[in-house]
């Protein structure tokens, strides 16, 4: 049975997770405002039940994703196209969507206490989270320039608002404005690249763009211009140098929970987008020769800037922002290597990055208390004396971010460096390893504060059931993936982008 030639059951099946997210986003907006229901939780203290909506939405999204992957497995297919090839459900997209689901769940659970303390607890926050995730769904599964672009804008628009969610905080407003202006500018570049691709192919479908580009010689200036402008737009989104300027400001000013969501989910979605474009239309061997040197320069710049700028930071969120810039550099190295190990390495990296980076930001979330911002390095002084559990968890996340075994971060870096050595990029591997040493220095500045310094602030951390659950989950997986990586590696291996 089909609804119509324009909207078949297959089409419906391919966008089911996004439909769930959009429905729940609308439901949250309605339930809290409909005249006959009244506000869902009239008492501000009851607002803490709000994340239940997100949990429900993510469960249904997860079920839809599971149904998609089991359908693919039972029919022996690697991908399923919907809407005349605008959306493609494959292992690659499903893998990234699971990352978004995990990130949204963890962030929603950690959010309610934080927003309460900041006295900005509104239902719209959770709706925006779900709408942003809806955009990410199309970034990971879209195979049409217009679909991808609308997904990107849906995600970015929600993030602009969420970054400025602390309405009375000047830093939050400033961060939102900077992010909006620079984001709009970079989107302009991206769309310019898209328009050139459309001009070459006469179609917005990625598959047709791929054929059109392959028919042209690799030195064709139009192809190069399309590649360069698209790359600028995408590199901005993953905050690679020299397009990283927005990241420290946006990360610092945004509510810490939003920073966590932004640094993980938005980055993962943009990486998925980057891989779709650079392994799709620009994936031919001739073109690889053109963009590999370009991306190598960007990756080395990103590693240098991210790691060196992080050394002097005294604000934890800025420090983690620069660290997340350098992680983008490592992921780019995997794309430069470009063999299966490298692409697989990016998938592993983004998976472990999700858990360790979310975890590190969650500890910063717990530092925010009544009247205490808790974002300075000194606020962590002597944390181990008051909250040894939190200090040890933070230590695990930082070790993992630095890439020290037996934590998960080691695994991510291992595959990236392995792929670089396999493809003969020895100098890049050396640079990457050297910057790991730099990274250990600034991560251990936090460790020194927590374990060696005397405590300066005695107010207990703000804790909630959701935050503990989220911290426990991310901590367990950061250690778990490091100690027993086998099942996670299999998942990543089965999700490679196929053509």
């Amino acid at each position: 049975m089909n609804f119509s030639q324009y909207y078949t059951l297959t089409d419906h099946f391919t966008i089911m997770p996004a439909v769930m997210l959009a429905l729940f986003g609308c439901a949250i907006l309605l339930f809290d405002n409909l005249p006959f229901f009244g506000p869902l939780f009239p008492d501000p203290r009851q607002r803490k039940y709000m994340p239940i909506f997100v949990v429900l939405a993510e469960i249904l999204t997860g079920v839809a994703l599971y149904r998609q992957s089991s359908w693919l497995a039972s029919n022996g297919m690697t991908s399923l196209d919907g809407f005349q090839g605008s959306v493609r459900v494959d292992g690659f997209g499903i893998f990234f969507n699971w990352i978004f689901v995990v990130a949204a769940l963890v962030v929603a659970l950690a959010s309610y206490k934080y927003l309460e303390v900041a006295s900005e607890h509104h239902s719209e926050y959770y709706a925006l989270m779900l709408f942003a995730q809806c955009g990410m769904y199309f970034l990971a599964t879209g195979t049409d320039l217009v679909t991808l672009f609308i997904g990107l804008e849906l995600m970015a628009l929600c993030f602009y608002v969420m970054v400025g969610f602390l309405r009375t905080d000047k830093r939050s407003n400033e961060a939102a404005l900077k992010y909006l202006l620079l984001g709009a500018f970079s989107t302009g570049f991206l769309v310019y690249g898209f328009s050139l691709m459309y001009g070459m192919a006469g179609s917005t479908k990625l598959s047709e763009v791929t054929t059109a580009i392959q028919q042209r010689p690799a030195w064709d200036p139009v192809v190069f211009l399309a590649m360069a402008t698209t790359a600028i737009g995408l590199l901005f989104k993953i905050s690679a140098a020299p397009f990283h300027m927005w990241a420290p400001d946006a990360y610092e000013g945004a509510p810490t929970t939003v920073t966590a969501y932004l640094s993980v989910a938005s980055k993962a979605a943009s990486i998925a987008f980057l891989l779709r474009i650079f392994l799709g239309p620009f994936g031919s061997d001739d073109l690889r020769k053109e963009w590999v040197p370009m991306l190598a320069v960007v990756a080395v710049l990103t590693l240098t800037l991210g790691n060196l700028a992080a050394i002097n930071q005294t604000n934890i969120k800025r420090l983690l922002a620069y660290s997340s810039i350098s992680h983008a550099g490592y992921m780019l190295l995997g794309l430069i290597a470009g063999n299966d190990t490298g692409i697989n390495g990016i998938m592993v990296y983004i998976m472990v990055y999700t858990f360790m980076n979310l975890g590190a930001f969650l500890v910063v979330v717990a530092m925010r208390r009544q009247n205490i911002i808790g974002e300075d390095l000194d606020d962590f002084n002597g944390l181990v004396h008051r909250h040894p559990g939190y200090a040890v968890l933070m230590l695990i996340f930082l070790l993992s971010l630095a890439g020290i075994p037996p934590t998960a971060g080691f695994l991510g870096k291992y595959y990236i460096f392995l792929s670089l050595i396999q493809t003969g990029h020895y100098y890049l591997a050396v640079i990457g390893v050297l910057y790991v040493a730099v990274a250990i220095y600034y991560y251990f500045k936090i460790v020194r504060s927590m374990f060696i310094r005397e405590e300066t602030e005695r107010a207990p951390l703000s804790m909630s059931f959701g935050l503990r659950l989220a911290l426990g989950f991310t901590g367990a997986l950061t250690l778990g993936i490091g100690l027993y990586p086998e099942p996670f590696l299999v998942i990543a291996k089965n999700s490679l982008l196929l053509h």
Partner: protein
Amino acid sequence: MPSGYVPILIFLVIAILFPIVTIIAAKLIRPSAPFLVKLEAYECGIKAASDSRGRYTVRFYIVAILFVIFDVETIFLFPWAVRYRDLGWFGVAEVGVFLAILVVGYIWAYKKGALEWV
């Protein structure tokens, strides 16, 4: 490089040269007699009362944003209205879904007091 681009190149060169040449030529030919009135926005008519870059209430922005919502609604309703018979019940359902999503936004804006002019 396809030869089809050559006319564009010629056009580009002319387009760049034209304003430069005219400005320089005018500068050479015209008499120079500067005085203050010439700098005003309108040399004739009523004198400007104040700067046009004044500040006005942020509510205008909300009205403008709400206008966009209904504007987009109309834009999408027009093509459907034109192809109404061909699309049949499927079209009605699609537009229904579209309007339902818009109504959610409308209810939200209404309950938040965005339509009230205090």
